[in-house]
């Protein structure tokens, strides 16, 4: 269960309430050109992000497409190898292990504790396998060799996600989108993980089914004491399910804090613009739009200074030259904005 020499790191200041501590995580993809595969530059998909995940909480990762949310969580489960940084995981036995440089063999015993739920239940379930085999596969790989034991466990898991166990011998195509997503959730839960990473788990679902799935995820969290990292672009879903929110923009976390703080009193202009753009289901709601110019910056060639300054309504000259560093405001909130002290930004208004 132990990593190599430098793998285990001492407990941090927050003590044992954290399950994961990410420090300065980077993932750069080389851009290769020509016959000789010369490296021309790098796409800085994730460019130095740090955050903690507390035991039992839901941390949401939000941002526009191309902001690096998916790349970041793929690095956490080592589906991608990070370029730099530390991913400190608090194991069941109370040890801190840095996952970032473990070999595949060293990772294997840790894998059951961290599982993923994917966005598209149509493509993440093998159409040629029955539900029993899909959910049973992680059990088989982790030593549950007796088929009857597996059937019992799959039955239990299907009940857990509110599906009828009689259906376990069917193939994924026989299920609706929402049911398929439940199968994906059951598979993720098969090995009793402590941390579940869900990458846009409800964005492919119909509105009515989305609500059922969110309810299920919240119930499971309570029943099983799960910790979630929840990647999403739909801010109303994030508001509903999360405890803390990290807002990403071009590979960086520009703001991270308690949900209510971030939603009602955003401190970064990008967070405010993102909240402002969400359509409200109230035709009479009047509001002033924060204009957001242009498009998401290119992570292969980000702008100078603050990456957000070309689109920011509050940018001043300094923003184009100085790179903002994370500043701590009201307790535990971290914001990367040069004007954080002077700006008053509108958040979500109630009523």
């Amino acid at each position, binding site marked *: 269960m132990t990593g190599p020499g430098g793998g285990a790191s001492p407990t941090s200041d927050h003590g044992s309430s954290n399950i994961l501590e990410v420090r300065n995580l980077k993932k750069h993809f080389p851009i290769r050109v020509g016959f000789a595969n010369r490296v021309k530059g790098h796409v800085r998909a994730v460019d130095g992000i740090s955050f903690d995940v507390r035991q039992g909480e839901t941390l949401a990762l939000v941002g*526009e497409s191309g902001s690096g949310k998916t790349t970041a969580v793929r690095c956490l489960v080592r589906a991608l190898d990070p370029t730099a940084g530390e991913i400190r995981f608090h194991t069941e036995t109370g040890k801190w292990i840095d996952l970032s440089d473990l070999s595949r063999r060293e990772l294997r015993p840790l894998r059951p504790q961290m599982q993923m739920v994917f966005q598209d239940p149509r493509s993440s379930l093998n159409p040629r396998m029955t539900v029993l085999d899909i959910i049973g596969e992680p059990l088989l790989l982790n030593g549950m060799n007796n088929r009857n034991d597996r059937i019992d466990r799959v039955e239990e898991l299907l009940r857990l996600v509110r599906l009828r166990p009689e259906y376990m011998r069917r193939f994924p195509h026989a299920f609706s989108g929402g049911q398929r997503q439940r199968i994906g959730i059951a598979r993720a839960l098969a090995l009793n993980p402590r941390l579940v990473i869900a990458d846009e788990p409800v964005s492919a679902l119909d509105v009515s089914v989305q609500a059922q799935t969110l309810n299920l995820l919240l119930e499971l969290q309570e029943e099983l004491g799960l910790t979630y990292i929840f990647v999403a672009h739909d801010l109303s879903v994030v508001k509903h399910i999360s405890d803390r929110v990290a807002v990403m923009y071009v590979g960086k976390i520009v703001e991270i804090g308690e*949900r209510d703080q971030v939603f009602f009193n955003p401190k970064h202009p990008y967070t405010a613009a993102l909240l402002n753009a969400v359509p409200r289901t109230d035709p009479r709601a009047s509001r002033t739009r924060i204009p957001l110019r242009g498009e998401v910056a290119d992570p292969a060639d980000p702008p100078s200074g603050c990456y957000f300054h070309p689109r920011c309504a509050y940018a001043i000259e300094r923003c184009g030259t100085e790179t903002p560093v994370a500043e701590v405001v009201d307790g535990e909130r971290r914001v990367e904005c040069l004007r954080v002290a002077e700006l008053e930004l509108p958040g979500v208004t109630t009523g």
Partner: protein
Amino acid sequence: MRTDRLLSVRNLKTYFLADEGVTKAVDGVSFDVSAGRTLGIVGESGCGKSVTALSILRIVDDPGRIVDGEILLTKNDGTPVDLVTQRPNGKFMRSVRGGEIGLVFQEPMTSFSPVHTIGNQLTEAIRLHERLNKAEARERAADLLTMVGIPRPAATLDQYSWELSGGLRQRAMIAHALAPDPRLLIADEPTTALDVTTQAQILDLMMSLQEERSMAIMLITHDLGVIAETADDVVVMYLGREVEQGSVENIFYDPQHPYTRALLRSIPALDAAPKAKLPAITGSVPHPFDRPSGCSFHPRCSEAIEGLCDIEEPETWRPAEGREVVCHLFGDREMAVSIEGRRS
């Protein structure tokens, strides 16, 4: 307000007649679209909202057929033409498509040709409907791109669609649809593939273009938030049928059909209490191939009356001009009240 009627769809039925049986994708839908107004069509997957749009343009793929109904388009001189009686590939329909009616699709990536430049495709659309030489058409194309807010129109004309970002591509798509100066713009999930920030830009653009040209817009979406922000009138569809119709205020502040009410309740609102259990609709949308008997929503409806909703198809009730509710509960107010009484 409803005098300037541009398009009137009456009891439209589009069925897919396959070997294994008939799928009633659209089964009796009626609505009007007026100049300068936005009609929102909202529903979950499989409710027939896209097939409705395709039917209006007569581009439903085989084995789909319009089996009944009328699609009346008011021509410039005020006379109505029934599009259902026109040949799908005839001269008239071709002048309607991309002429009177412009279409914006959900996925601009697949609706542009990847081997022709944006300018190529725009000038082609312009010259199909107007006698202009290439240079003049190119100028018009550049004007269109400027109008939809593309920063460097001249350079964009020589680019391919895959060189543009999602937002710019959707803007180019709108420019393409507006090229022949249509009186009706049909937008099928125009912002679904986009980020919220880009979505806000595109919706603002569509609304301002509508104001300038007093164009009618038919906006098809599953997103109730988008409807609330843009639509004047709303049709709620479920499994190929209309369940409720009314002004946007009717639908959001006074929804009558249990489906509309449940749909509105099931979205987590930004200003709602966090982590509360969402009042979800049970089950999922059935395939239109095996539509439940009676009212198609009854198996998922919390207010369904046994022996009535599962057997008889509900009538359409019209409590006011432009307001329609298709539900047994609404029809018999007294019965509804007595049921309420029994439940509480």
